[in-house]
């Protein structure tokens, strides 16, 4: 079963793919992608990559809520378990 921690790891991995200078960054749940240097297009890219990895499809409007990667992981976790 996919845990919230698994999802967080996935977000971190895709973030490092899109924003290479974060290769050695120690992520924590309160990290905000914008403050880490991810542009709006980078963030859209990361969110799509995570959805593809999780085989999820979430309306874009629902993705505006989360304020950090911990909240983003919680949203994906809730969607998986609601499905």
């Amino acid at each position, binding site marked *: 079963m996919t845990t919230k921690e698994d999802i967080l790891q996935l977000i971190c991995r895709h973030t490092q793919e899109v924003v290479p200078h974060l290769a050695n960054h120690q992520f924590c749940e309160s990290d905000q992608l914008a403050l880490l240097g991810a542009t709006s297009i980078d963030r859209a*890219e990361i969110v799509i990559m995570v959805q593809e990895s999780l085989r999820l499809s979430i309306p874009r409007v629902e993705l505006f809520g989360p304020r950090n990667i911990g909240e983003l992981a919680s949203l994906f976790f809730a969607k998986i378990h609601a499905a």
Partner: protein
Amino acid sequence: MQLDLRVTAVGVVSPIGQGKAEFTRALLAGESAFGELKRPGRQRESRFLGAELGPLTAPTLSHHGLRGASLSAQAAAAVLDEVWREARLDEVAPERVGLVIGGSNVQQRELVLLQERHRERPDYLRPTYAMSFLDTDLCGFCTAHFGIRGPAFTVGGASASGQLAIAQAAAAVRAKQVDVCIALGALMDLSYWECYGFRAIGAMGSDRFAEQPDLACRPFDQRRDGFLFGESCAAIVLEAAAPRPRAGLEPYASLRGGGVVSDANRNANPSVEGERRAIAEALATSGWRAEQVDYLNPHGSGSPIGDATELEAIKTSGLRAAYLNTTKSLLGHGLSAAGLVEVAATLLQMRVGRLHPSRNLEEPIDEGLNWVRAASVEHRVRRALTLSFGFSGINTALCWESLS
């Protein structure tokens, strides 16, 4: 008084060599690298022939900086890296540097691969597709990488795109929009769809030499049966001759003039009259007489009708005396890149004073011309003419004069 435009740098990647030193050596040795195309997205129940690049070796291209960059963008960055260092463009104000990229629809293979990957789930398409499908992504990628802040745009002229980019870059310098302008012929990244299309229209060979790729590319030879594709990319730097040039520059040649004309024709067929007009305009703007041209780098794709038409235009323009060889016989046809790669080959031959051999030119369709055949020829070029023609009736000719 027309501005004296100088070429201050040349950069190239090709199947037979990357960087001008290796490229020049391979050109003069008459090397080639034809075989069945192998890059993913190039074949589908097919055995198309051509020549592909080896792994790109430009020193400053970091793996990280290339994420999401198409093959065309990576090749562009490699040749820009070469000209940037040679022309010392770090010493020029970024706002005074321009970039004109020749080519349109150049990333076809990557688009096909991406569309196939997402065919069942288009909702997972990467958001960056909205930018990267445009050829102008090459401009964005290159200007960001090199800090270019003058005008940067693409120009499309089918197989004449490379020479058209040079004509536009020259116009930008003459109009004083910029002090330095880079003209780049983009790597045309064909998918199997374009290969099927070129075969269907009769432009791409080879039926005759399907089992002998080494023999299949033979522009101007009696047994030619169409062009072979070849991946390549090249760039040159154009700037006005300055009273105090940047230290270390060694200009290659002057761009004396050029002609760009249309045939009022939507089709792929060439026109003697259109090609002759482009040549005449190039000679007139240069103040040259035809008989002064002592080296000619023709378009010569290997097309049955195109090559014969071009030779007719050359002969009736009074250019019989000039040496000529065929760069495409070694590299294949780079389409959007071809004009620029062949100008690069011309400038490099001018520099070394030697003309490269032509491959497979066993029985020229006209024996009366001054061909460089199987062996290279020592020759100090004074005045060179380069020709590129494209589908939709696009004809270009450029005149290059030695500085020595």
